[in-house]
């Protein structure tokens, strides 16, 4: 019986992937691409004003840890309830 685990992992991965993508879309990661080209060239990059994006990032962090937690739950299930 490994399908439930595989499926759970695939789903978790998919959900996190899509969420991160939507986050990126919403916070304008795909906008201003002309300026983004210059980011590796440190000297020539104008200093950007500091951005307030804290809450979104906590969400992403949270999702990352949710994945780890999901793994632990699965592990616990596999160890104790199978």
């Amino acid at each position, binding site marked *: 019986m490994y399908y439930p685990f595989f499926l759970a992992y695939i789903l978790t991965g998919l959900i996190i992937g899509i969420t991160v993508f939507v986050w990126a879309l919403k916070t304008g990661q795909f906008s201003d*691409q002309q300026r983004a*080209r*210059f*980011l590796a060239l440190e000297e020539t990059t104008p200093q*950007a004003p500091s951005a307030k994006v804290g809450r979104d*990032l906590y969400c992403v*962090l949270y999702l990352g840890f949710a994945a780890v937690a999901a793994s632990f739950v699965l592990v616990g299930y596999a160890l104790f309830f199978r």
Partner: protein
Amino acid sequence: MPENPTRPDTATYLTARGFCLTSAAWMMLATLVGFTAAIELVAPDLTGNISWLLFSRLRPMHVNLVLFGFATPALLACAFYMVPRLLRTGLYSERLGVITVVLWNIALVALVITLALGVTQGREYAEMIWPIDVGIVVAFSLIFFNFMMTVKNRKEKILYVSVWYVLAGTILTACTYSLGNVIWQPDSGALVGIPDAILLWFYGHNVFGLLLTPFSAAIAYYIIPQVCRTPLYSHTLSLLGFWALIVIYTHIGTHHLLQVPVPTWLKVVAIVDSIAMVIPVMAFLINIWYTARGKLGLISEDIGGKFVFTGTIMYFIVSIRGSMMALPDVQRVTHFSHWVVGHAHVGVLGFAGMIALGGVYFILPRITGKPLYSQFLANFQYWMILIGVVGFTIVLTISGLIQGNAWLNGETVYRVLPQIHIYNIVRASLGLLIFLAAVSGFYNIFRSLISNPGETS
């Protein structure tokens, strides 16, 4: 939490320094072990019955040390330098970073001791026993946390493509490493039967695809524009490549199992996506090469840039070759032969290793504020590795085809071995070059970081 310089230029880069030294030191042992194993292929009786020098113990030691001792730490060193700079802030916690470096080295020492003693879980790239697995997963989790908090403190709103790659590479490795090492079965570290093979190669391929490749791509995207003093050709294309890599690479592990009774639909997915890998690969290469167009002079003058650019050419070779190897008709000949070993060396040493070293040589002067200890030694290392890896590719491809054809035709092993003997000799000699390169590289990196006589700029 701890010290948190808001300006990147006040940083101490202790973590980056630590990972540079880690990589340089372990590269010597990794290549020495590989060299010894190569000699044993020429002279199998050389080390008699000394148990910890048997080929079966040296091989996993070599492979794991190259992956986790040499390549990954060098890539991480560069990431720890690059990520804060790209985000225009300081690293969240240098102290946490240093703890990670220490943990990493403890895991590597344990890796060498256990594998030398034959304490292994016997699954390729997942040989390490459970406590070491846990150490590695914790290390990756700490790194991810450190990077995420740096992202949170950032002054630059847009995440440059390199940051995307590094973040994804770190967290995905933490996840797939746990999964591939079946970390919930501490004793065996394995499932049972075919599902285990599928899981193992899902993970095994992710070591290259979701660890080495994203980090290497991140470094190339960071260094090539700087060396060429020109903006990236297209940031949109780079993001397209990133998402394509994430979507496609995760599906192709089963191309390692085409001769195994895994479900056919899974093989089909793996083969189709192996060909589709052309999309992220070419999105990356077109971007880098267009950025570098007309600037090869600048690249050849910068030792870091030179390593990195050569790495991108190797990426082209390894990927085209890889897509071909995933075709069942091709793999019927090449599987279980030196051909695959050739591919592995172009990938891990030619592509990821070259870019990792390029990253180290690029950041060293910047983190120490002094010129590299020796340009000559760095160039020496470049040429030794280039000659070594191109040579490997040629001899291993030839001997792989001899082996593969012989097997296909039902030849007996004892008639084939003499035919490939000469190639094994050449291969071992080339290994010596690479080992020498590792030693000179260690000396150069050590002197650049510690007791560097150069003037502070």
